[in-house]
């Protein structure tokens, strides 16, 4: 560098606390009169907000297309981000701060650049990464310092950086070293797939640098990703860069700040590389000295909070083990994996479960940022506003009741909007019970409260439109849900909110949870709603194949587990199992899948023979088999006679009858044998047994229709004798009186006996 060169290049690692600290030292030493930061110039106007008291990182700069909010880019900042520290320094010392990257207005207009930056893609990728614990070696360009650290044996770029700093006295020396390292790397390594528009971005950076120089600034600090440093050092002619940048397309973009979370910092977005351990980095930033001791003490405290043993002596041992591990692995400082392994061996007795707790609470250390009130409106807020306007449903602080007719498209959309908000835990409307029948009516009680606006801002991290946010949020809930009932409940909500994109994930999760559930009642409850979806396909674009697979698996599991789940039930449990069996049976009948029905009938056959099965269930099993032509009348008579024979407890016999007859007694009227068995049983009940059973039997008969009951009553009035004879031919009638009726009958039938020859 020549002495009249005004630029000081600070090559950094995005989100690196070590870099952040070095940048701060370097800035304090340099006293710059201009700071250039790698970042989107579209958001430059928002920079002063970063200094306001309401601003608390982690936050992110969000740049999006106003008419297409799902196309957006996030630039997250944590307190320990070097960029954030540079911005804060500038705001504190009233030094102008500029963003110097190629504006997103132009990058979003470039065709190839969009895929990696659309939130959908980053979201998905990030989720997959998060599920897969061992971090992949970062791409050379995205995080070259981490890459170098890996090569030198460090698991983590930060510890390597510390090591580097400790050995060098002067901080600016470090940046010189990085410059040399990167120059060598860029010269030697031909990196993986070339990043789109890298040349354009670097050209633009140089252009901004030249502008700053022209303005007469003398000490310009340039904070940028280490990878770019060599490209910014050698300045080609301004013309060359201008030619490169000329005629780039442009789109209109809007920028704003959004609150961010530590969990989300672990995803790659905006600056490329996500970081694995934001909580650990925060710790590195807060406590620069004695990292292991501080960290392991925090681990011990966390474990103690959760009633796990963690003594001070163990902390000492863990520190020693971590240090020994690091030296065994040929490093001067223990990195996060050394610390974790020491924690596992010393604190957790080899158990890996507490480590998960530590990962969640400390290593990632969930925390939500805040943004000041003056921040421009977020895209999700705008999207909701647009929807409210379009659907003519303004937010009002007073309560109002809304009745929706789902057959009208406007009302349907309103309902979907309210359901989506509900899914996001923004209860603007409360669903109310509708009067009258029909599924097309929905009642809502609407009231907008100020805290809902806050919830809306927080929900923005999930997506920039209501649909996106609700989808992403639901997907996250699906991923973390362990309860089958919760998942089926979600399925219903998702149907109402019409979020087809979540269905695939929901079904997969449902299948997985169902596989490990041994709670048959839960499985029984989960199936009917799914069967409805499958049968009526009332979800648009739902992959019914997926649903069919889930339903199939559920049915098989239920059939295998049902006999065990039905044994030893008390009255109450049997009653609830009874209604579940009914709905399950209806669902299967609805689906008309032969294999499932066959399986189901086989289980029913087993059930009716099962010893000690509650009468209610055995009776219903018999009835179902009879209705499906699996048992003939003779077999049913046999079962019934067995179930209510005198050796059985009258109470269990009564439950059998209730199970068998529940809903309709027509079967009794049609089948003489059954009627007789039942009649015989009632007649032979002793009085002390009859009285307590009466309400039970009455309850059963009350479910029959009035006509059925009338017929039964009539039959009983004839008495047992007549009953027996009712099918016999009757021969003792008076012939003369009979003959008297015949002419009228003839007339009615249109036969004229008196004039057989006709008129």
């Amino acid at each position, binding site marked *: 560098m020549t002495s009249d060169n005004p630029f000081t290049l600070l090559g950094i690692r995005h989100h690196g606390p070590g870099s952040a600290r070095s940048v701060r030292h370097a800035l304090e030493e340099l006293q710059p009169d201009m700071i250039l930061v790698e970042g989107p110039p579209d958001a430059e106007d928002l920079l002063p907000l970063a200094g306001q008291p309401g601003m608390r990182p982690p936050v992110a700069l969000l740049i999006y297309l106003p008419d297409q909010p799902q196309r957006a880019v996030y630039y997250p900042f944590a307190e320990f981000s070097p960029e954030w520290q540079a911005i804060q320094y500038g705001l504190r010392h009233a030094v102008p701060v500029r963003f110097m990257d190629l504006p997103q207005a132009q990058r979003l207009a470039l065709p190839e650049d969009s895929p990696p930056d659309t939130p959908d893609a980053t979201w998905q990728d990030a989720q997959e990464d998060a599920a897969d614990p061992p971090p992949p070696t970062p791409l050379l360009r995205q995080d070259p310092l981490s890459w170098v650290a890996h090569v030198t044996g460090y698991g983590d770029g930060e510890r390597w950086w510390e090591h580097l700093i400790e050995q060098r006295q002067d901080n600016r020396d470090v940046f010189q070293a990085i410059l040399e390292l990167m120059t060598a790397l860029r010269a030697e390594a031909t990196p993986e797939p070339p990043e789109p528009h890298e040349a354009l971005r670097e050209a633009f950076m140089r252009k901004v640098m030249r502008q700053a120089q022209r303005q007469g600034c003398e000490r310009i600090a340039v904070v940028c990703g280490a990878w770019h440093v060599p490209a910014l050092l050698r300045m080609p002619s301004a013309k060359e860069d201008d030619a490169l940048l000329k005629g780039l397309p442009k789109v209109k973009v809007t920028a704003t700040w959004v609150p961010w979370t530590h969990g989300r910092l672990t995803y790659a977005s905006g600056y490329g590389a996500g970081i694995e351990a934001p909580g650990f980095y925060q710790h590195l930033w807060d406590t620069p000295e004695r990292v292991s001791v501080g960290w392991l003490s925090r681990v011990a405290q966390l474990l103690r909070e959760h009633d796990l043993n963690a003594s001070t002596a163990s902390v000492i041992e863990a520190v020693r083990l971590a240090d*020994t591990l690091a030296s*065994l692995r040929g490093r001067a400082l223990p990195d996060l994996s050394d610390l974790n392994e020491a924690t596992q061996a*010393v604190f957790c*007795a080899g158990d890996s479960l507490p480590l998960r707790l530590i990962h969640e609470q400390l290593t990632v250390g969930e925390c939500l940022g805040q943004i000041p009130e003056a921040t421009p409106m977020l895209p999700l807020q705008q999207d909701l506003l647009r929807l409210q306007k379009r659907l003519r449903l303004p937010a009002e602080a007073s309560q109002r009741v809304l009745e929706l007719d789902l057959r009208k498209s406007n009302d349907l959309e309103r309902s979907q909007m309210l359901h989506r908000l509900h899914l996001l835990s923004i209860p603007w409307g409360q669903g109310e019970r509708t009067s009258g029948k029909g599924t097309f009516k929905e009642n809502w009680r609407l009231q907008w409260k100020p805290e809902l606006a806050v919830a809306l801002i927080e929900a923005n991290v999930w997506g920039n439109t209501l649909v996106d946010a609700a989808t992403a949020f639901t997907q996250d809930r699906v991923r973390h849900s362990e309860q089958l009932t919760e998942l089926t409940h979600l399925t219903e909500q998702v149907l109402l909110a019409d979020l087809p994109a979540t269905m695939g994930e929901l079904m997969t999760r449902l299948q997985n949870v169902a596989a490990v559930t*041994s709670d048959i009642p839960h499985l029984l409850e989960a199936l009917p709603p799914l069967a409805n979806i499958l049968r009526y396909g009332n979800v648009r674009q739902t992959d019914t194949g997926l649903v069919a697979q889930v339903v199939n698996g559920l049915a098989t599991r239920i059939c*295998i587990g049902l006999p065990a789940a039905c044994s030893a039930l008390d009255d109450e449990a049997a009653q609830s199992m009874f209604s579940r069996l009914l709905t399950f049976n209806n669902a299967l009948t609805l689906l008309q899948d032969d294999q499932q029905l066959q399986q189901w009938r086989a289980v029913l056959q087993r059930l009716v023979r099962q010893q000690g099965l509650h009468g209610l269930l055995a009776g219903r099993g018999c009835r179902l088999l009879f209705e499906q032509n699996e048992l003939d009348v003779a077999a049913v008579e046999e079962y019934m006679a067995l179930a209510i024979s005198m050796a059985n407890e009258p109470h269990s016999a009564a439950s059998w009858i209730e199970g068998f007859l529940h809903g309709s007694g027509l079967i009794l009227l049609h089948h003489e044998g059954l009627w007789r068995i039942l009649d015989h049983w009632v007649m032979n009940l002793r009085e002390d047994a009859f009285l307590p059973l009466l309400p039970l039997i009455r309850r059963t008969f009350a479910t029959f229709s009035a006509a059925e009951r009338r017929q039964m009553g009539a039959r009983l009035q004839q008495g047992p004798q007549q009953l027996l004879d009712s099918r016999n031919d009757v021969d003792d009638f008076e012939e003369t009186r009979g003959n008297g009726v015949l002419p009228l009958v003839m007339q009615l039938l249109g036969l004229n006996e008196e004039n057989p020859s006709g008129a």
Partner: protein
Amino acid sequence: MTTLLREHAEQQFAVEFDELAQADNRSRPPNWKLSPWAVATYLLGGVLPNGYQIIPKYIGDRRLMEVAIATLATDRALLLLGVPGTAKTWVSEHLAAAVSGDSTALVQGTAGTSEEAVRYGWNYARLLAEGPSLEALVPSPIMRSMEMGKIARLEELTRIPADVQDALITVLSEKTLPIPELNTEIQAQKGFNIIATANDRDRGVNEPSSALKRRFNTVVLPLPATLDEEVSIVQQRVESIGKTLELPAEPPALEEIRRLVTLFRELRNGLTLDGKTKIKSPSGTLSVAEAISVMNNGLALAAHFGDGRLHAQDLAAGLVGAVIKDPVQDRIVWQEYLETVVKERDGWKDLYRACREV
């Protein structure tokens, strides 16, 4: 050629130790025969600078072995934990051999292990003849190791009665062994440490007191991480056992072993290998050792009652017995697995049918 049935690690791998000692120029903790780095190389295998090839003794996670070695280098004792058949004893023997050059200071933990086996006993003839003296004392392996600064091994820690276990606390925390009868004590030399092993599933048998547990760093040895690793272990063992039993059956095809190991791994992990379907896990361990015994069982059946070749039905009987340990719960798990996974898998039809018949 040796006539010994089984050699100690330090005898069997004497040449490797010599080579390692020559190549090893890193600093050694006091009384260690090798540096921690060389111990790691001995266990995990590698090539020395002079080109000498060290055979890997432990196939698996390198980081676990590093934690174990680093533990011995601090003065905390090491507890190796794991389900049966995860090479705990094997690792402990090789660690002791590599660190102290001697793996014979061994106390086998049983329900009948007494305090004499952990501390010291008396030669009663001498005691009666000469009165109490150091000469009348019979030192335990642990006491000898303390005097010589070596590694002592304690097998099956959790089977030892709790009161005997607690005799170790003084040894591990004060590094001394008091002998009140002689009003003296033995102070451990540098280099002394204890490697204990314990069975994961037996934790409840004689759970160590928290005072004792606190003196150990615990390393859990996992079951083989990948299918291929497990298949090769099973194959190797089945073939060697088949030879000693002189079974007239053909050694099983790799495909058959692969299928069995797949089944064991899926049930053990509660997840199909493609990671797509979750399943329930039975109550048993389904360790590698059990896979080996199912295989041997099938081979014996094939040899003595079949046509000498292993078929699905030869495996099925042993397989069902290995999976179903609890007659109610495990049967449901097994049936679900059969119906939802085995039934639909290509090329598994014979196994499905054979298992349904059992």
